[in-house]
């Protein structure tokens, strides 16, 4: 759970039950997950963020996102463990 996974923000919205809790949908190379954006208030649609256990922690550029993802792919099952196997493919 310690590895941060980079992904691209494709949607930003207020959380349905907590309007102050900024959330969004992040695309991890085709796998999409809801992500809490409360710690990256400046991040917009199209930006890349590093996501730890469902929370975006830092913004990075696209090249950095690609490099980090390549490393994580080399760790057995890392993506499945960090993002879950029951991903909605969209």
């Amino acid at each position, binding site marked *: *759970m*310690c590895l941060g996974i980079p992904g691209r923000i494709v949607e930003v919205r207020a959380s349905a039950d907590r309007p102050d809790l900024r959330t969004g949908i992040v695309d991890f190379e085709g796998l999409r997950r809801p992500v809490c954006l409360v*710690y990256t208030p400046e991040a917009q649609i199209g930006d890349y963020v590093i996501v*730890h256990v469902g929370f975006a*922690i830092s913004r990075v550029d696209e090249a*950095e996102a690609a*490099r980090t993802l390549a490393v994580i792919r080399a760790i057995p099952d890392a993506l499945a463990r960090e993002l879950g196997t029951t991903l909605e493919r969209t």
Partner: protein
Amino acid sequence: MKYLDEYRDPVLARRLLEELRKLATKPWTIMEVCGGQTHTIVRQGIDELLPAGIRMIHGPGCPVCVTPLAMVDKAVAIAARPEVTFTSYGDMLRVPGSTGDLVGVKARGGDVRVVYSPLDAVRIAEAHPDRQVVFFAVGFETTAPANAMAVLHAAARGLANFTVLVSHVLVPPAITAILDAPDNEVRGFLAAGHVCAVMGYTQYEPIAARYRVPIVVTGFEPLDLIEGILMTVRQLEEGRAEVENQYARAVHRAGNTAAQDAIREVFTVTARSWRGVGEIPASGLALAPRYAAYDAEHRFAVESLNTTEHPACIAGDILRGTRLPTDCAAYGTACTPRTPLGAPMVSAEGTCAAFHGAGRQRSTVGSR
């Protein structure tokens, strides 16, 4: 051993290694603290590409591995209660406790569920007001902001059936503990890039100054690691002991202040015992008294249990960097990722699992 040609930029990797070879006049021992970095170093064989004398020690950088046995036992005891729905990151499920793991509880009919975010656990609590939902809040500074927000969210929603079993650990006090050990050989550290993305790196500056050790904030891509090692060796050779940032692409000196504020609101710094290492003062986070209502240890009043590690496991030495997994008699035979005897074999970030995944063979007789 891997070949440099497999690197994203083999030319640059070769150039950095060449520079390192020219620079290193003395033997130096360097520790990387992050389990993700350990994985890259072992998998890419970076430790085997370094000039003779430059030795990498793999530090206690896997949160699954350092979660104390007593805490795993408490998790198992709470999860076994009939009114409890126990939620956890998947990595923790197969960590062996004294008498079993969370998978075993599930097999015996316990309600144990894997979640990917602590907010998922809060959602389960909201959907099932008749259940006591407990979340196993473990990890380093990288998961603390998420776990803090889960508590804040539950408090904002007034949830009475959500608690957290907190076993958070902090990196800088672990570095200090390693440096304080009388037999310490580590002369420089690679600090974990993603931990610093959250916390910044001002906390490392007094450590570097006081102990005269270079600390280089480093990413976990192969080239990052070679560059981080080069920067550390350059400081050592020049007699400098500073905090430098190799991973400026993602890390700023101040870190993520909004995340730090949430951590400070929900948690307070406490002594923590690290599996295999022992208690380190001020090395962990516990719930602040004002959030005591969300503390699972409180609600379920689990007593300290008698804990026993598997006798063959030398995880303590491995986490301190004094022995390698390949020195363990059980490595790759009785202990494999499918049948882990100790925590460092469970998580892919654990040193034993990283060695096993890279196909490293057990030391031949007489090598030690």
